């Protein structure tokens, strides 16, 4: 990786880490993540508001979450929440899943993101690792149509069973498209 910009940003991160305890902790976790799962597994590392955020590929997500649960150093034992997200403009990365893990022992949180094409929304289930993932995944399926392979009971959970679309996708706006009084012509939005 002879990318000068990347080196610069790592150096900048290191100086920031020296000053801020949260950043220091996050840098340690990131180093551990890299040593456990390999550096190439993660991309787009950032720390919005002090919460370490990494992006990975869907092939790795099950292994990472299982590994983090078993890891004796990090002890990410707790799946706080997960949710889907939809970016229609990102070609072949339209859908995403965002996982929040929490290490109750060290009181650190970790956010893991994966993105995948809307045409092939298949993600391995985490319900074999965390019982809590069962309904969270059903919710993500219900809202975004993400298919979780290996899920024991992947049915809609909040919406009616015979709904034939996935309502949280951005292609379904909230307001009725035929209404003129709600358009924001005057405010340029």
């Amino acid at each position, binding site marked *: 990786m002879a990318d000068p910009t990347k080196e610069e940003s790592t150096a900048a991160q290191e100086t920031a880490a020296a000053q801020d305890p949260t950043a220091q902790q996050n840098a340690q976790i990131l180093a551990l993540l890299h040593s456990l799962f390999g550096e190439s597994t993660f991309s787009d590392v950032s720390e919005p508001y002090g919460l370490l955020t990494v992006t990975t590929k869907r092939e790795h997500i099950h292994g990472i979450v299982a590994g983090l649960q078993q890891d004796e150093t990090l002890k990410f034992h707790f799946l*706080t929440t997960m949710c889907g997200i939809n970016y229609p403009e990102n070609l072949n990365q339209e859908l995403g899943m965002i996982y929040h893990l929490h290490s109750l022992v060290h009181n650190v949180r970790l956010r893991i993101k994966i993105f995948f094409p809307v045409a092939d929304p298949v993600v391995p289930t985490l319900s074999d690792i965390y019982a809590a993932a069962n309904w969270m995944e059903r919710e993500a399926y219900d809202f975004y149509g993400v298919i979780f392979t290996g899920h024991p009971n992947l049915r809609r959970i909040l919406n009616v069973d015979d709904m034939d679309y996935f309502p949280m996708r951005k292609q379904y706006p909230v307001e009725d498209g035929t209404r003129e009084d709600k358009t924001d012509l005057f405010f340029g939005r």
Partner: protein
Amino acid sequence: MHYAPSTEHQAPIQMAVNDALAGTHKITEEAREQQGGQLVPTLNDFSQELTTLNLGPTHPATHGIFQNILQMDGERIISGVPTIGYIHRAFEKIAERRPFYQITPLTDRMNYCSSPINNMGWHMTVEKLLGVTVPKRAQYIRVIMMELARIADHLICNSILGVDTGAFTGFLYVFQEREKIYEIYEEVCGSRLTTNMGRVGGMERDLTPVAIDKLRTWLKEFPTVMKEFEAMFNRNRIFMDRVVNVGPITAEKALNYGFTGPNLRAAGVDYDVRVMNPYSSYEDFEFDIPVGTNGDTYDRFMVRNEEIWQSLRIINQALDRLPDGPFHADAPHYYLPTKEAVYKNMEALIYHFKIIMGEIDAPVGEVYHSVEGGNGELGFYLVSDGGRTPYRLHFRRPCFIYYQAYSEMVVGTSLSDAIVILSSMNVIAGELDA
């Protein structure tokens, strides 16, 4: 035949129940093979004499709209299949179209037993995104209101648990006090149940002398009632027989199921967001986190009772040390100006207009903020793309996550125990379904 209802048996039984509901009253060959050739009991298997019981969706004992299709062998529950979503209102979708201040009323309607906590949690999330620092006085007022809400929430849960075990009196005793809490809310923000309290940046108005007066009177009177309530239940033999060792859950299992709040603490894990990730100056106060040992209904009840006392401690400390100063942040872009200022001051008029029309852009970013809600870690995951509304807003609703364990917890218990477990878990339909 003796059933050993365990997790590996559950899935085929659930399938069998689903098939039965769909009208196919047959045991499939696959299901039989999964059971190691054993017969799977289904609805029409008269040799087993199983009954299907539809508990809910509108059953007075479930205190909300949830359905559980229970398969019962006499009084004993073999399996339960929960159906939720009866009051789903698509809050996450609606929130993508609303300016930030218009999302507060949506949060009211999640855990409607402790709306102020939801409101403040949402305000704090937006403040974190905007980088607004709230003055100490506003933080203390928030703490007071949030702890009042926690007391109201726990009072409802514990007293309803009493009602479900046949003790109606305690419920009436403490509901009078809950009414007084609502009067304090009314004095602070004008409404009672769905409070819409506070603003992004602080409180909408300062605590009035009347509010402080009401609060002080209530703080004096409430402990007597609470002691009476505890005297009625804590060592009551009839009550204890109904709740001790009913619906226990181990700490490992509770963590695996994503339990938070009093339910997790009853299982012996001292995880409390107020202590682990202090927000709104919780680090200034001294209080204890009660934990249980068994994670059974009795522990959940006792943990909630003790938390009420701890909340009282926090309120007393916050009220005694209430700092002087402004009750909202100096953030004119985000904090709605007063009506007088709008009439007299040009800038205030502009900001009023811009905020009300939702013309204030938020910075790009993503924030996860969590508060200790009435029944667990209430999280807000906000993704902002820089527009007037969130790009994505996800609520981590504690009920939704831990209610999954219910169908496992009721297996092997009796119907009356199932009702007691449900009330002691404090599942609020509004929060469950969002």
